[in-house]
C-alpha cells in the first residue's frame, strides 16, 4: 500500500521524542562548541510536547500529525531550531492536507516543501553547515524512492540514510549561518547540531517503520 497510516506517524513522532531525549546532552554539547549549548534541550522538549499533544488529540488525518508537531515548535521556546522545525512541519502538514488520503508522493513533496521552507527562512544554501544539509538530501532521496516506485518504508529508509550522510558531512564544513559562524574555527570537526538532530529524527522514523513492516 502507498497510503500513509496516521497511527504510524504518531508512533514515529513518539520515537523521535524518545531518541532525541536520549541524545539531548550530546546535541547541547556540540551546540556549545560554537553556539549557545541549548539545541538538545530545544528539540527534545518540543518533540516531547508534540508527542504528548498527539496522544491527546488522536489525529485522524496525516496532515494533522505534522501540523501539531509544527505548533509544538512554534508555540514553544523558539530559538533557531524552533522556528526552522516549526516551519518545516507546517509546510509538510500543509502539503499533506491537500489530499484526502495522501500517498507517498505527497509525503515526498511535503518533505521537499519543508526543506525549501527551511532554506528560505534561514537564507541558506547547501554546504553552510546547517540542518538544511541533512534535510535537503533526505527530501531528494525520498523523491527518488517514490520515482523508483518505493513504498513508505522504502521512502523513510532512503531519507534516513541520506540525512545521516548529510549530517556527517557537516563536520567538514565551515559554519556560515547561525551562531556557529562566529567561531574562529567555524566549528570545523564538529557536526552541526541541527543537522544531527534531523538525522536522528529520520533514524527514529525508520526504526518505527521497519518494525511496522516486519510485523
Amino acid at each position, binding site marked *: 500500500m502507498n497510503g500513509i497510516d496516521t497511527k504510524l506517524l504518531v508512533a514515529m513522532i513518539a520515537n523521535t521524542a524518545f531518541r532525541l531525549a536520549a541524545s539531548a546532552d550530546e546535541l*547541547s*554539547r556540540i551546540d*556549545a562548541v*560554537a553556539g*549557545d*549549548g*541549548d539545541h538538545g*534541550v*530545544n528539540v527534545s522538549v518540543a518533540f516531547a510536547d508534540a508527542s504528548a499533544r498527539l496522544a491527546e488529540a488522536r489525529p485522524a488525518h496525516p496532515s494533522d500529525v505534522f501540523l501539531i508537531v509544527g*505548533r509544538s*515548535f*512554534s*508555540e*514553544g*521556546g*523558539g*530559538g*533557531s*531550531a*524552533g*522556528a*526552522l522545525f*516549526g*516551519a518545516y512541519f507546517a509546510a509538510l502538514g500543509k502539503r499533506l492536507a491537500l489530499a484526502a488520503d495522501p500517498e507517498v508522493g505527497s509525503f515526498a513533496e511535503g518533505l521537499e516543501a519543508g526543506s525549501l521552507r527551511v532554506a528560505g*527562512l*534561514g537564507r541558506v544554501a547547501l554546504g553552510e553547515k546547517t540542518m538544511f544539509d541533512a534535510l535537503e538530501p533526505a527530501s531528494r532521496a525520498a523523491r527518488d524512492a517514490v520515482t523508483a516506485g518505493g513504498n513508505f518504508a522504502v521512502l523513510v529508509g532512503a531519507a534516513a540514510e541520506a540525512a545521516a550522510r548529510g549530517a556527517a558531512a557537516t563536520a567538514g564544513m565551515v559554519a556560515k*549561518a*547561525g*551562531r556557529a559562524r*562566529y*567561531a*574562529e574555527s567555524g566549528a570545523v570537526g564538529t557536526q552541526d547540531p541541527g543537522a544531527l538532530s534531523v538525522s536522528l529524527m529520520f533514524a527514529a522514523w525508520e526504526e518505527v517503520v521497519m518494525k511496522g513492516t516486519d510485523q
Partner: protein
Amino acid sequence: MIMRTRWMFNDRKNIVEEMLDGYIAAHSNLIALSNGLVVRASRKPEGRVGLVVANGTGHEPAMIGWVGPGLLDVNVPGPIFSSPGPAQIIAGIKEADRGAGVLLLVSSHAGDIMNATLAREEAVSAGLQVAMAILYDDIASAPSDRAEDRRGGPGLFFVWKIVGALAERGANLAECSEMARRVRDSTRSISGAMGTVVHPVSGQALGNADGTHLAVGMGVHGEPGTVVDDGLLADDVCEMLIDRLVEDAELTAGARVALMVNNSGSLTLMELSILYRGASAALKARGIGVSRSWMGSYATTLDQAGFALAISRLDDELLELYDAPARSGGFWMGEANS
C-alpha cells in the same frame, strides 16, 4: 574580582517565570504581565504605532526593563538566550496593536529573525499591519561591507529610545520603520569580556574568556571574541575600541555622538567610570563631541564581567528624540534633561 558557583534561584525550570513575576511586582506602577508578555500598565493611546521586541532572556534589564511610556509597548520574553516562538510573538503583536500598525524590532540573531519572520507572515495574513526592522550594531561580528550579517548588541538601546519617542508622538508605521533603520545605520558597538558565564539551566559555560584575559568582540550570548595583550590598560583598550568604532562608522572631526558604556553584568561602576573617561577622551582626541551619554547596565549577559562601548551619530532631530521623556523599569528620562 570574584569566584562564585552558587545561584540564588528556586527551581531551575521556573527561573524566567519567577523573574517576570518579581520584576513586574517591583515595577507594578509601570508594567504588567499579560499571558507571559511584558506590557505597559497603561496602554498607549489608540492610533499610535505599537512597538514590539521578542527575545531571549538573560540580558536584563533588556528587554523587560524597556517597556513603558516613551519606549516599547510589548516585550515577548523567551527562555534564557533563546527567542520565543512565533505563536507568542503574534500574541505580542496583537497586544501592541492600537490601530496604527505594529513595528517588530528584531535584534539580529538567527533565531530571533526566523521566529519574527514567521510571526509577521502569519500576522499579516491574518490582516494585521506589521512592519519589521532587523537591527544590528556589533562591528566585531562581520566586516562593514557585510553589515547586514552583524548581530544586535547593547547599542540597540539607541534605537529603542529614539523610535520609542517617535512612536509616542504619533509618527506612522513607515516613519517609525525608517527611523529604526536610520538609527541602526548610525550606531556601532564593540564589547570586551573578562570571564565566561554559565547558563543557569544547562550548566554550560559560554564564551572563550577564562577570566584572566580580556577578549574583544564577544557576543551577548558568549559568541567567541579575540583575546588581546594582557598589558593593555583601560585607557589603551578604550583607544583601541574607539578607533575601531570611529573608523567603521566613518566619523570625522566635528561629528557629534551619543556614547554608551554598557556593563555586561558584573563590572564595577568604578571600572565602568574609568572606561567612560577613557572612551570620551579617545573620542575628544579625534574631534568628536560626546553630546549625550549613558553609563550602566543596558544589555547584560547574566553576570558576565565585561562591557561594551557603543556610539551613535546625532543630529538635531535625533537629539530632540533622545531627550524626550521616557519611563520604564530600567530607564527614565525626565522632561528637563539637558
